């Protein structure tokens, strides 16, 4: 695949990437709402309990997310 074709193929990527992020958020939010309505333990409660039990992993996950934001959006100009 040439560079020009790679750029042309990116038109599908710029649709798929936000769609995946959006539907992950939507799915988790919908599941949390259903769990709360059914009085089951919501996903957020499971994750909060996990972060209480494994604080070092909490720092690693938070650091990974911060590094991703910095990597994506703060590239210095050439």
């Amino acid at each position: 695949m040439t560079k020009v074709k790679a750029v042309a193929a990116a038109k599908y990527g710029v649709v798929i990437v936000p769609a995946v992020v959006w539907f992950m958020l939507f799915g988790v939010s919908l599941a949390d709402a259903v769990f709360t309505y059914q009085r089951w333990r919501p996903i957020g409660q499971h994750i909060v309990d996990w972060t209480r039990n494994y604080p070092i992993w909490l720092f690693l996950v938070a650091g990974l997310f911060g590094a991703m934001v910095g990597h994506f959006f703060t590239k210095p100009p050439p």
Partner: protein
Amino acid sequence: MSSPPSTPRPAEATLRLKWLILAAALFGLLTVGTLVVGFFVFPPPATPCSVTVYNEPFSRGLVHPLIFIFVAIAAAVAGRLFNNPSSGPIGGRKPHLIVGSPKSEPGAAPPAKPPAPTSRLAQVADVLSAVWVQFSIWLFLLIAVIGLVYETWGVGHNNDPWPITFLVRCINNSASIQTVIVTGIVSFVIGSWLLFRDDKGKSGGRG
């Protein structure tokens, strides 16, 4: 032997949650329909963003990069405050609306432990909840692995095809406002989960 009394569910909260679920479902259907119709009726252009002479996307859009950092931090803090309200209508007076660990009021009696499931249906519901959480974790990790494999493949082949980093920068170049909004939403959710408040009122981890 009588079963332990269960806390009655307030009618107002039940009605609110029903509307919330209905609104979320309708919003999801609208999103799916918009994506499908938009993709086939109005396909994206061949070059969705500005590229450099090396056929790489420009890394900046309308929004300054430092604003992304500020929005991410502010949204994470807002998520933490939302999930651990100290007072107000979402706080201790209506703990059934809290998604997370409810905080007891000062001087109040410690919250009673939830009654153990007595009926077969309640036991099945508890198991189903745990299975759903495990399935969600598996699905999240599967998507993360697929993304990492694709990223590695793209970087290992001289950015051909574009790695996810390039795709995100391309999206930021062509739609900066939307990108910073989604970044704030994701940071809000992560902040509400990770920046918890423990029983002594301290935030953050202990390690």
